[in-house]
C-alpha cells in the first residue's frame, strides 16, 4: 500500500518569511503522526499545505499514491478532491447550520444518496455521542460538544486521511484527557491515517505512532516516540522533548578535558576535533554529593519538585541551571557545599550548531 501522504521538497514562502523549508515527510497508512513544535514552527502551515488550503512555493505532495500538488508541473488539486478530512482548532462549525446539517452538508456535496447520508449521520453521531444534539445550532453546544461535532463532520465522508490542527487546545484539562482516549479509539475504529498538529508533547507522546518535531520551518526529527526520547537527533529535540527536558551542558575543550564553567572535567568519548560541544545529560543520571570529587560541579540548591516517589532538584551552577532526578533529597540537598556528579559519558553530544555527534 502506498504511503498515506508523502511530501517531497515542500517549501512555502509567504511574502517576507519562509514558513516551510524543504520538507520531506512520509506518513504510512494507518499511522498516527503528530507534528510537534513550538508555535510559529510551521506545523500548521504544513497541515494546511497538505490539505490544499495553501499552495506550496515548491515541491510535490502525494496522497495515497496520487499526486495532488506538484509545483514544477503547476498541479494543484482542490482540497475537496484530496480525500481528506480536517478538524480545526476553532472547530469552524457553520453557525447557521444545525449539527445534523453540519455533518450531512459535506456528504451531500460529495453526492451521497439520502439513505446513505442518514446512515452515516447515525453512525458518526453514535461514535461521538452527539445523537441528542443533532437538532441544535453550534452556539447551543459546549466547547467539548462542538469539538465532537467537528470530528464527526470530518470523519463522516470516510476520508483516507484525517488532519487535526491543535484540536484539543480550546478544551479544559479533563476533557482533553478524555478526548485523547476517544481519538485513539476513533483511529483504531476508522482505520484511517491521522496527521495531528500540537505543541503539547504529552498529547504527542500519548497518542502518536510517529512524531515529527519541527522548528523554524524544518523537520528536526521524524521518529517513533521511544526513539525520539532515547536518541534525539538534534540539540533542539533534546532540549524540547521530555518532561522536564534533559540538561544541555555547553562544554569547551581544554587540552584533553572539557571545561564546564570554571571546572575542567574528564569525559569519555567526546569528539576532540570540536572546540565547543553541547552534552545532553538526563536528570536521572545526575547524582548529588556533599564533597567535591571527580566530575563533580559545585552547585546551589534552588527548588525541589515532587515527581511521584522521586524529586526533580533544580540547581544553579556556574555552568547554568541543572536538573537532577533523585530518590531521597532532603538529607542531601539542603545546606552549602552541594555538588552535582555528572556521568562519565553524556547521553548524547551535539555540535555547536545542534547536530548530533555521538
Amino acid at each position: 500500500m502506498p504511503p498515506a501522504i508523502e511530501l517531497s521538497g515542500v517549501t512555502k514562502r509567504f511574502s517576507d518569511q519562509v514558513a516551510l523549508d524543504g520538507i520531506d515527510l512520509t506518513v504510512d497508512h494507518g499511522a498516527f503522526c503528530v507534528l510537534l513544535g513550538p508555535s510559529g514552527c510551521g506545523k500548521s502551515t504544513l497541515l494546511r499545505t497538505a490539505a490544499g488550503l495553501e499552495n506550496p512555493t515548491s515541491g510535490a505532495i502525494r496522497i495515497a499514491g496520487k499526486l495532488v500538488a506538484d509545483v514544477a508541473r503547476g498541479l494543484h488539486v482542490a482540497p475537496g478532491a484530496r480525500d481528506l478530512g480536517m478538524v480545526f482548532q476553532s472547530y469552524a462549525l457553520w453557525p447557521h447550520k444545525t449539527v445534523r446539517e453540519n455533518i450531512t452538508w459535506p456528504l451531500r456535496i460529495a453526492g451521497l444518496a439520502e439513505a446513505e447520508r442518514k446512515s452515516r449521520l447515525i453512525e458518526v453521531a453514535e461514535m461521538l455521542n452527539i445523537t441528542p444534539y443533532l437538532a441544535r445550532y453550534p452556539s447551543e453546544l459546549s466547547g467539548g460538544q462542538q469539538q465532537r461535532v467537528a470530528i464527526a463532520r470530518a470523519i463522516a465522508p470516510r476520508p483516507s486521511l484525517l488532519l487535526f490542527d491543535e484540536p484539543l487546545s480550546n478544551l479544559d484539562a479533563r476533557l482533553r484527557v478524555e478526548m485523547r482516549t476517544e481519538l485513539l479509539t476513533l483511529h483504531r475504529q476508522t482505520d484511517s491515517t491521522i496527521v495531528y498538529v500540537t505543541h503539547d508533547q504529552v498529547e504527542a507522546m500519548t497518542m502518536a505512532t510517529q512524531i515529527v518535531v519541527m522548528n523554524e520551518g524544518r523537520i528536526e526529527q521524524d521518529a517513533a516516540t521511544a526513539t525520539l526520547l532515547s536518541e534525539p537527533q538534534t540539540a533542539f529535540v533534546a532540549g524540547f522533548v521530555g518532561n522536564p527536558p534533559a540538561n544541555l551542558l555547553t562544554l569547551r575543550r581544554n587540552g584533553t578535558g572539557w571545561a564546564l564553567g570554571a571546572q575542567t572535567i574528564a569525559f569519555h568519548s567526546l569528539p576532540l576535533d570540536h572546540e565547543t560541544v553541547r552534552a545532553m545529560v538526563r536528570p536521572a543520571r545526575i547524582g548529588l554529593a556533599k564533597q567535591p570529587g571527580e566530575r563533580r560541579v559545585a552547585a546551589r540548591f534552588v527548588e525541589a519538585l515532587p515527581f511521584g516517589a522521586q524529586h526533580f532538584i533544580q540547581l544553579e551552577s556556574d555552568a547554568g541551571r541543572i536538573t537532577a532526578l533523585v530518590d531521597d533529597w532532603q538529607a542531601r540537598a539542603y545546606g552549602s557545599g552541594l555538588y552535582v556528579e555528572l556521568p562519565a559519558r553524556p547521553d548524547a553530544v551535539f555540535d555547536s550548531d545542534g547536530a548530533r555527534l555521538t
Partner: protein
Amino acid sequence: MAIDAKMGGRPLPFPVGRLLTPTFSVTTGALVLIGLLVIVPLAGIATALASAEGPDAISDVFTGRIARNMLWVPLTNTFTIGFVVAASCVLLGGAVAWLVTMTDMPMRRTIGVLAALPFMIPTFAVALSWTVLFGDDRLGSASMGLFAQLGFDMPAWLAWGGVPVTLVLIAHLYSIAYMMIAAALVLVGRDMTAAAEIAGASRAQILRSIVFPVVTPTIIAAGALCFAEAVSSFSAPAILGLPVRFHTLATRAYGAIETGTPERGYVLIAVMIVVAGAFLALSAFLQRRGQAFTTVTGKAGQRGRMTLGGWKWPFALAALALVITTTIVPALALLFSSLSPRTGALFTDPTLHYWFGASDPAIAQGQAGVLRNPQLLHAVWVTLGVGAMTGVAALACGLVIGSAIARTKHGAMAQLLKQLSFLPLLVPGLAIGAAFIGFYGAPIGPLPSLYGTPAILVLAGVAATLPFAVQAVASARAQIAPDLEESARIAGAGPLRILGAITVPLAAGKLIAGFVLVFVKMVRDLDLVILLYTPQLPLLTVLAFRYASDGFAQFAHAIAVIILLVSVGAHLLASGFGRASQPWLHD
C-alpha cells in the same frame, strides 16, 4: 401636568431605608432619567392626540379632504424613498464590504477608510452639494448648478424632488451598511470557508451556503436601519423636495407644526414613528438569531482572500469612484461654491468674501462673510457649547443607566432599562424635537417653559443620543474584565483608588469616543433641532438651512464646510483613522 402630580403625591410603597442601598438608588435614578427623557415626551405626543383637537386632526389627516396631500402622497413618497434607499445601500455597502474584507482588491485600505466617511458627512451638506452640481434655474439663477452653468439642460427630475432626495440619502447611508456588513463578514472565519472547501464545495457554493447565510441577519439589520434613517430624514427632502413641493412625512409634519396645526403634525409624526420603528423592531427580532452567530469561536482576522484576477482593477476603480463621489466630491462642491463670487459662476474669480469679507451693500444684501458675521460666530459657540454639554450630559446619563444595568445583572429590570434606553433609536429626530416642544415647551407646574433655552436643546439631544451613550458606557465596561478590578481589590485598593487607577484609565478611550460621537451628532444635526431652535439660540445647521432657503447659497455652503470639517475631523480623531472602528483594515 396630570401625570406629574400623581407621581409626586403617591406615598412611597417601601421603607425609606431601602433608598440607601446603592443598587436601589442607581436603578431609581436610571428609571427617572429614562422617564423624563424618553417616556414622558413621547407620551406627550399621545396625550396631544387624545386631547380635544386630537380626534379631529386624526380624521382630517386620514380621511379628510386634505388626506391625499397631507398623508397619502407623502407616505407613498416616504415608502418609495425608504425601500429604494435601503435596497441600494445594502447592495452598494455590501459590495464594498465584500471587496474590502474578502478579496485581494488593490487599494482596499484606502477605499475602506473613505467608505466610512459618508456617514460622518451630514445629509443636509450632501443635499446642498447636490444643488451646487445639479441645480437648475427653476428657483432663479441663484440655484443654478455647475452642470446647468456648463450649458447642460438639467432635467427637472434630476435637479429637485424624489430622485435627488433618494440619491443623496443613498450617498449618506450606504456607508452604515458598509460598516455593518464588513464587521459581519469578518466573523466568517477563514476556517469556516476552509472546512467547506475541504468538503468539496465550489466557490459559488461557499458564497451561497456559508458566507451569505451567516451575514444575512446583518444584511437585514443594515437594510432596516437604512430604511428607518431614510424615512426619518428631514433635511434631504426639505432642501431638495420642498422647492418643488415634493413632500415626505417629515416635511409635511414640519410644515403642519410650523403653520399652527401641531396636532396634524403629531398625527404624521406618529405615523413616522410606526413606519420607522416597525422595521427596526422587525430587524431586531430577526437579528436575535443572528446574534447567536457572533459567539462562534474563530480566528478572526485570518482570512483567505478571494483572488479577483483580471477583475481586480475594474472593481477597485468602481469602488474608488463610489467613495470619492460620496466624500470628496460633495466637500469640494461646497467649498468651491463658497468661494464663488455669485451663484451661477462656480469657477470664475474665486473670492473669500463669503468667508472673511466685510459687509458690502452690493453683495448678498450687505451680509458680512461668515467668519466676520457676529450672528454666525455666536452660532459657532452655541453649537459647540450645546454639542459639548449634550456629550457630557448624555455620558453622565449613560453612566447612571449603565451602572443600573450592571447592578441588576441579567434580571428583568436590566432588560427593561436596556430596551427603554434604546427606544430613541426607533424615533425620528424630528419626532423627538416635536415631543420635546410639546412637553417641555410649556410651563410644567412651577417649572418655567424650557422653550428658547439651551436646556431644551441639550435635553432633546441627550434623549436622541441616549442609545449611543449607553452603548459607549457598556463597551467601556466590557473593556474591563471583572478580574482586573478584583485583583486590585485583593491588592488592598479601595473603591476610589480602583476607580482612579484601573477603571477610568482603561475606560477613558471608549468614553471619549462616546463623547465625540454624541458631540458630532449634535453639531451636524438638523432634524432634531429644527423645531427647537430660536433666533436667540442660533445653531450652525439651522443657519445653513435658513441661508439656503433664502437664496444665500455661498453662506450656507461655507457653514456646511465648517460643520463638515468639525464632524469628519472629530470622527477621524476618535476612531484613530479607522484603526479602532474598522479592525479589518489592519490585518
